[in-house]
């Protein structure tokens, strides 16, 4: 299949496992365990029970009438913002914590940028009674203090990372170093469809429930499971892969991924990896990344802390190369405008990340009969300060 991973962990030319030998056994064992659980009935049963009763799935598919009227089309919102902990991130952490338990790991580590994945990891560790250590850049700890406190309340130890640029990429490096140092008892829960094989595929698998539900719910509402288009924001790209995955073989469904444009893609302050990046290796995966001419990784910028990752999942790189997904970008200003519009028309405060997906509605022409699904990947509670400050300006 054109968009599926091959036996070596590649999507086309992207992916693989570019890791020091010290992690070889860990990834080998993880891949074996992951392959087992995909078809293991008891595991699937446990996972579904937690997704329903603990996370609150299925998340609703909501026909946003006033927004539809404004854009003169039919817009449906996939309400991942209504999940426990407020974003899609928990779909993945629930799956990985069950896998970690099955592998008899007793210590869980994670990286986090804005803190959403950290909170989702701390939550499932509390649920299972497992030790949890979250690496977070020192700069992000300052910027996202409420989430630091949430993680601590849930029993996690948050470790400040002072190396490099002190943000998400450095937190990821530090988590990798921790895993290298504790290969036996520790499982590393990566938060997006990034990292070495099997992570991109595994995280995509756990997130693909989003697209499956969209198909079922749309069929129920309209009689046809296929929308005209799906729009999702892309940092590492897990919510987008989750929403797209089921529909990849159906070329008639248009897919749009929206990157963080920051101050504009040519401003030097952007997170639009597919525009400004080049193929290379980051965190064990061959993909597009923001880097200088010498191959040193550069720090991206976006108003949204969840989109400013210098890489992008290898499947996205492949879908970009194959032209299956159309990638675009929204600037900080466009995302803010879209967020305020959603608040006013639908009474929903989206996460800043998700606001980028809504900003794409201005940029794409839809007809009165089209059905457009926007993946509302998270809620905006964590972004209130930003929204309030910019409203005043």
């Amino acid at each position: 299949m054109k968009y599926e991973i091959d036996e070596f962990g590649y999507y086309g030319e992207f992916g693989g496992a570019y890791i020091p030998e010290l992690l070889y056994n860990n990834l080998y064992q993880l891949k074996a365990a992951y392959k087992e659980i995909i078809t293991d009935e008891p595991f699937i049963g446990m996972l579904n029970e937690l997704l329903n009763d603990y996370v609150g799935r299925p998340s609703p598919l909501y026909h946003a009438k006033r927004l539809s009227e404004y854009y003169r089309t039919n817009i449906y919102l996939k309400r991942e913002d209504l999940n426990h902990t407020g974003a899609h991130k928990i779909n993945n952490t629930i799956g990985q914590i069950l896998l970690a338990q099955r592998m008899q790991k007793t210590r869980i580590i994670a990286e986090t940028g804005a803190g959403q994945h950290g909170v989702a990891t701390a939550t499932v560790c509390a649920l299972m009674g497992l030790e949890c250590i979250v690496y977070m850049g020192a700069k992000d700890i300052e910027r996202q203090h409420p989430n630091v406190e949430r993680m601590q309340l849930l029993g996690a130890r948050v470790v400040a990372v002072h190396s490099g640029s002190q943000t998400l990429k450095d937190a990821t490096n530090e988590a990798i170093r921790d895993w290298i140092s504790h290969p036996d008892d520790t499982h590393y829960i990566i938060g997006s469809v990034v990292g070495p094989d099997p992570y991109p595929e595994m995280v995509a698998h756990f997130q693909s429930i989003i697209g499956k539900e969209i198909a079922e719910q749309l069929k129920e509402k309209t009689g046809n499971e296929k929308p005209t288009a799906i729009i999702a924001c892309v940092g590492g790209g897990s919510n987008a892969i989750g929403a797209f995955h089921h529909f990849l073989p159906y070329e008639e469904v248009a897919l749009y991924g929206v990157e963080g444009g920051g101050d504009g893609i040519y401003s030097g302050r952007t997170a639009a990896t597919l525009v400004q990046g080049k193929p290379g290796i980051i965190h064990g995966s061959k993909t597009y990344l923001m880097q200088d001419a010498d191959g040193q990784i550069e720090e991206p910028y976006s108003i949204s802390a969840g989109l400013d990752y210098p890489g992008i999942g290898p499947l996205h790189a492949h879908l970009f190369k194959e032209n299956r997904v159309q990638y675009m970008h929204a600037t900080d200003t466009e995302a803010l405008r879209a967020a305020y519009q959603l608040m006013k028309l639908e009474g929903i405060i989206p996460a800043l990340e998700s606001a980028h997906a809504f900003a794409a509605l201005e940029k794409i022409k839809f007809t009165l009969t089209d059905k457009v699904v926007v993946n509302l990947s998270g809620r905006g509670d964590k972004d209130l300060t930003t929204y309030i400050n910019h409203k005043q300006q």
Partner: protein
Amino acid sequence: MNRIKGLFRNKQTDILTIYFTAGYPAVDSTRHIIQELDKAGVDIIEIGMPFSDPMADGVTIQESNQTALQNGISIARLFEQLKDIRDVTDKPLVLMGYFNPVFQYGVKEFCSKARECGIDGVIIPDLPMREYKTIYQPFFEANDLGICFLITPETTEKRVREIDEINTGFIYLVTSPGVTGRQVQFKNNQVEALTRIEHLHLKNPVLAGFGISNNESYKTVCKYVNGGIIGSSFINALNNNTQNISDNIHQFVQSMIL
């Protein structure tokens, strides 16, 4: 002949390999450090190519990488510095660095440039064996560069044998789980691992690294494998007395050879 092969033909024990970061402490320290390491009597000199995100390295090498990059080092500039390096040393020279900067430079171009400078071996810890075999091997072979893969005490015998088959420089044995720059106490389980590797009787010479920080740990690994690789504690020693780097280098190497 490749100088790594030449070295091991004449000497199989107590091979002292020192790692330093190119461009550190100053951007043009490279040539001077190589010269002094040569004079001080080390066997192999490992030149680190700095990277913004060195994921297997501890704080010391992370910081030396960052400083070196701020100083303006790059692979292109390093090759400039190494242009006439064979005028001052005949020791085997090995380049060590993460894959992305090499990939951006162009692997083919990198290999031919390395040969022009008289480089003998390359260590790229995050270049997988399979990608090396299926894509890059011809470039290394065409330029007589010894590729040096890592193994750990946990690497299965089957995989060690596979690596031994394809490896052409020395095998880099990581002594115990963890990043570079830790102080490893060579207790029973580390010694067990060293013994296990010793008993495999590999075709390639084996040098142990990660956590070799002083004379005691260096001499311990030398009992089981062909020698040891020292990085972080050498970087720290460079700073002992910044007024005179040469003295620091000689004192450090002496303390190991003792």
